[in-house]
């Protein structure tokens, strides 16, 4: 899709977005509510017309095609199952519209229901299904026509938390087995990372960053990306030397040392420029013993929260700033609040953010 834009009543919802999907890829459009991700999805489905720009599928311009002529199917957040039809009739709906022969429709419906493990529910009505079952039927229905591109609008939005985690893996597994190219919309970074090959982070109708989940999580381009994907520590720093190979040497007073940090992009900040440096809490490590010889910082534990798999600490750095540390729970005794501890920084995980 190239330079797609759409406004509602003069308020731009999507501005100038260009995005490519590889065949068989699962891409997640991730962003806070109102960032334009659903509008973008609906433009690809043909349910909204872009004001500007064009949508291409396999090199063919489908921008002006009505939704019923596009080889694209959408799984709705509410599933939008037809209440007056049975599960089998819902799945068959698209095939019947395409006037496929009845025997083929029957075979395809059986195949699709087997794929989502709903064979025994053929004759049920949507109202007689649980949320998770409805989701499976909706998936089977949108895959039945073998779309070239499958769109999923907040696929887990209507499920409760526990079911959500289960279904994320299952759904991603089915999508990979079918090999269909997918674009899904979500506001949940975890969901995007579990299900997608690539994440396209959106903000205010524009793409903020596109990359694999690891790229976007580990190397956020800016403060928005860093904070949206998960908890992060941000520190002020000064560029000491703009060394070669895209590596800057940055002095971070809060972390008490100079660190080599990869530059955020092609435009490197010059020497003496002040920058923001980010590090994820799990890349900071607390130790009880005096590890100062190895470059650890003496800090004071300000608070802690036990979360089962890990414990989150708030620690006061020598300069007085607070940092969040995520310590894996390995059975070692916890650090008590108000006590000193030693903090080591995984320098390789530091990132300079673009402003």
């Amino acid at each position, binding site marked *: 899709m190239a330079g797609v834009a759409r406004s509602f009543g003069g308020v731009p919802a999507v501005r100038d977005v260009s995005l490519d999907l590889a065949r068989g890829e699962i891409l997640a459009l991730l962003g806070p509510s109102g960032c334009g991700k659903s509008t973008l999805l609906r433009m690809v*489905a*043909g*349910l909204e017309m872009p004001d500007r720009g064009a949508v291409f599928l396999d090199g063919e311009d489908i921008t002006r095609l*009505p*939704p*019923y*002529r596009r080889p*694209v*199917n*959408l799984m*709705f957040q*509410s*599933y*939008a*199952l*037809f*209440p*007056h039809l049975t599960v089998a009739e819902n799945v068959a*709906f*698209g095939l019947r*519209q*395409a006037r496929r022969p009845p025997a083929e429709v029957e075979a395809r419906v059986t195949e699709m229901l087997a794929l989502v493990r709903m064979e025994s529910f053929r004759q049920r*009505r*949507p*109202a007689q*299904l*649980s*949320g998770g079952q*409805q*989701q499976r039927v909706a998936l089977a*229905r*949108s895959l039945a*026509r073998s779309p070239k591109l499958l769109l999923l609008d907040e696929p887990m939005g*209507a*499920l*409760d938390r526990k079911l959500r985690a289960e279904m994320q893996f299952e759904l991603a597994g089915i999508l990979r087995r079918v090999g269909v190219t997918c674009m899904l919309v979500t506001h949940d970074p975890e969901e995007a990372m579990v299900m997608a090959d690539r994440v396209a982070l959106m903000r205010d109708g524009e793409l903020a960053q596109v990359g694999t989940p690891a790229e976007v999580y580990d190397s956020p381009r800016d403060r928005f990306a860093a904070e949206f994907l998960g908890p992060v520590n941000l520190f002020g720093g000064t560029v000491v030397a703009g060394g070669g190979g895209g590596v800057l040497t940055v002095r971070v007073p809060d972390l008490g040392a100079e660190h080599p940090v990869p530059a955020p992009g092609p435009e490197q900040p010059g020497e003496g420029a002040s920058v923001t440096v980010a590090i994820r809490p799990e890349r900071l490590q607390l130790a009880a013993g005096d590890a100062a010889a190895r470059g650890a910082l003496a800090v004071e534990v300000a608070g802690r929260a036990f979360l089962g798999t890990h414990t989150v600490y708030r620690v006061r750095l020598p300069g007085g700033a607070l940092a969040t540390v995520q310590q894996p729970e390995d059975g070692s005794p916890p650090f008590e609040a108000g006590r000193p501890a030693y903090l080591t920084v995984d320098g390789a995980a530091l990132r300079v953010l673009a402003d």
Partner: protein
Amino acid sequence: MSRRWQWLVLAGGLSFLWLPIVVLMVYSFNESRLVTVWAGFSTRWYGELFRDRQLIEAAWLSLRVAVLSASSALVLGTMAAVALTRYGPFRGRAVFGALLTAPLVMPEIITGLSLLLLFVALSPFVARGMLTLWIAHTTFATAYVTVVVATRLAEFDRTLEEAALDLGATPFRTFRDVTLPVIAPALLSAWLLAFTLSIDDLVISSFVTGPGASTLPIVIFSSVRLGVSPKVNALATLLVLAIVLGAVASWLAMRRASTRYRAVVVAGPK
């Protein structure tokens, strides 16, 4: 207030509403020729009723007019409701809505009179009779159908239609295969309402009908002025039963549709 009092008040209210009809139904089984004197149980007047050609013909006419006008009102009213709810805030939408539903509050006597004047003006082309009854009943029933169907369409989940379009259904097939079946119970309910309104209309019918085309209400009303025959009680009892059956059917249809709809769409999947 004690429980005894609550029951008394309830009984009082209900008998105020229903006692006259119950009395009428009881007296339809009265042996006596005098409507107000009980002379033992009999179904004699039901037999007499079915031998009364004038009444039977009037009932047959009323039935045909009601079926025809309810059906045409259903088509017109549904189209109007779709226009009102689906075409966004088009120019003159409020005026269109007001004009459509005005017959709901328009005094019947005025509607009847104006239709009579219209049909008199058209008399060289349109003979007053069943056709004019059909047209007149369609005009007021359309307003009711529009209101019922528009209410249903307003709460209709548009994503169902989007899903149908997305699955390759043209707008026409989307309407036929998804919208219509989902709102079918509301359509049935609207049709039954229009049917009932037509069956028991007296005022407008007396204005627009012509010689030889007397509907049931007209025949009953004129026969009562000459003195009530117990036959009329029998007929009224049958009518009440028919209307109650129709109302219950319509209510069941609406309820079934709305629980099914709510379970899937409004409450959302759990």
